[in-house]
């Protein structure tokens, strides 16, 4: 059975039809990436899948007892809210110190427990968010533009970490991203969204699709080709992922 499935999902938000007749599903262990220009309804779709927004039409089904590890796009912890990393990892449910330490070490953020969340750098903050999501023992990791604010090497490293976690735990990964050339090679499936699903399939299929090129321009196709070429020959090199520049525009 699918972990999450949406059928005929339409969503009106602030009087505007943001999503129209979207069919979506994700299975155990899959990496699915949703790409689309700003305002294309990517975040809205994620929120509908989480159950935070009720659909105007259609249905969203989550497998019973589904454990979701969610990494939000931006998390503004109010200046008035004191929050150490250790305490944050116990949101929503208390975690023993040892589990917290293991989760932090796994994402490369060991020893940050005593720091205040607001004192972290952008990269540290994203890693702590990921560690918290892992502590839920997730069936699926849902990440909304998780590399915003990271530089290219940082983003590439973050995505590699996600791939490793998927291998280790077998959890599914649902990702919203604009870092097209970095993300897409790792995905089993790419969904190109612009209010409705423009095209869907393997990274290769989507990057060749005319609908995709119409949305993102021909430059992206070139970067993708370059990236795939690098990937064929180098599965370990960290630096390669950083090479392509930004094409999402």
């Amino acid at each position, binding site marked *: 059975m699918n972990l999450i499935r949406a059928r005929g999902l339409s969503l009106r938000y602030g009087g505007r039809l943001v999503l129209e007749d979207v069919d979506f599903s994700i299975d155990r262990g899959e990496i699915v990436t949703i790409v689309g220009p700003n305002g294309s309804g990517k975040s809205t779709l994620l929120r509908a899948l989480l159950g935070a927004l009720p659909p105007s039409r259609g249905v969203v089904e989550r497998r019973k007892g589904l454990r979701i590890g*969610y990494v939000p796009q931006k998390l503004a912890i109010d200046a008035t809210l004191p929050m150490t990393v250790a305490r944050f990892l116990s*949101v929503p449910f208390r975690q023993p110190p040892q589990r917290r330490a293991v989760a932090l070490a796994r994402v490369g953020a060991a020893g940050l427990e005593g720091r205040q969340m607001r004192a972290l750098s952008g990269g540290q903050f994203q890693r702590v968010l990921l560690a918290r999501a892992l502590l*839920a023992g997730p069936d699926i990791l849902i990440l909304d533009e998780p590399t915003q604010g990271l530089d290219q090497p940082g983003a590439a490293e973050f995505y590699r970490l996600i791939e490793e976690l998927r291998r280790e735990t077998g959890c599914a990964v649902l990702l919203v991203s604009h870092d097209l050339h970095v993300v897409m090679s790792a995905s089993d499936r790419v969904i190109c969204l612009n209010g409705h699903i423009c095209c869907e399939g393997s990274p290769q299929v989507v990057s060749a699709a005319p609908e995709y090129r119409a949305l993102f321009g021909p430059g992206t196709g070139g970067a993708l080709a370059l990236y795939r070429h690098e990937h064929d020959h180098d599965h370990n090199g960290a630096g390669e992922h950083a090479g392509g520049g930004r094409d999402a525009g």
Partner: protein
Amino acid sequence: MPEGGAMLDDFVLRAVLAGVGLSLATGPLGAFVVWRRMAYFGDAMAHAAILGVALALGFSISVLAGTLVVTLAAGLAVAGLASRGQAMDTALGVVAHSALAFGLVAVSLLRGVRVDLAAFLFGDILTVGLAELWLTWGGAGLIVVLIVWRWAALLTATVSEELAWSAGMNPSRDRLVLILTLALVVALALKVVGALLIAAMLIVPAAAARGFSRTPETMAALAAVFGAGASVAGVWASVIADTPAGPGIVVAATLIYLVSVLFSRFRAPV
């Protein structure tokens, strides 16, 4: 009369106990008001309480029940307007000030009832009766139990509503829990600090606690302690210097806040 009743005949002791009891609720609740930036929201509900007083006197029901109903209605009205995409500060401004104005007009229209409006605007803690004292402690206890019970959900929703949804919680329901407890605290605090200063009783001790806290739990607990300390100080000043007790409590809380600001300045940031 329960045990200790004789001791509680002392009006000063009753006033202190009422203030301390209320602070147990306003501390943790005030922390949420500060974290979620609901300060003006609390103010709107407190102003609406005056309308509740007028209606209660007009219909000859208990003032507590009247204020509870009206503040709850005001809270739900504002929450409803906000969720329909109205600018929050405008919606709050309309509800807060119109409820206060309607209340003041309605009180003036009451025939055959002489109302000491100042007591409701600024509180009248020194005349707290034994029944009101039990009511304050009962209500505050209920609020504390509710907050402790819902703590994980309330805190998660405060950090991020999406995060709460993803954990299978329902942050909309927790927002209602907060509005309900706020209405109750406003109804209880009306007697202690008065409608105009209830928001201060929520915000100032919590703001003072921020500077000394590294976790949300510490801040909520310290806010209760500071509020209780300010209540004792305010009542004490009132007895010694004949100052108004309600405003005195807020002044004392503000002094603690100033100390906290200085304290944070002279040490490494937490």
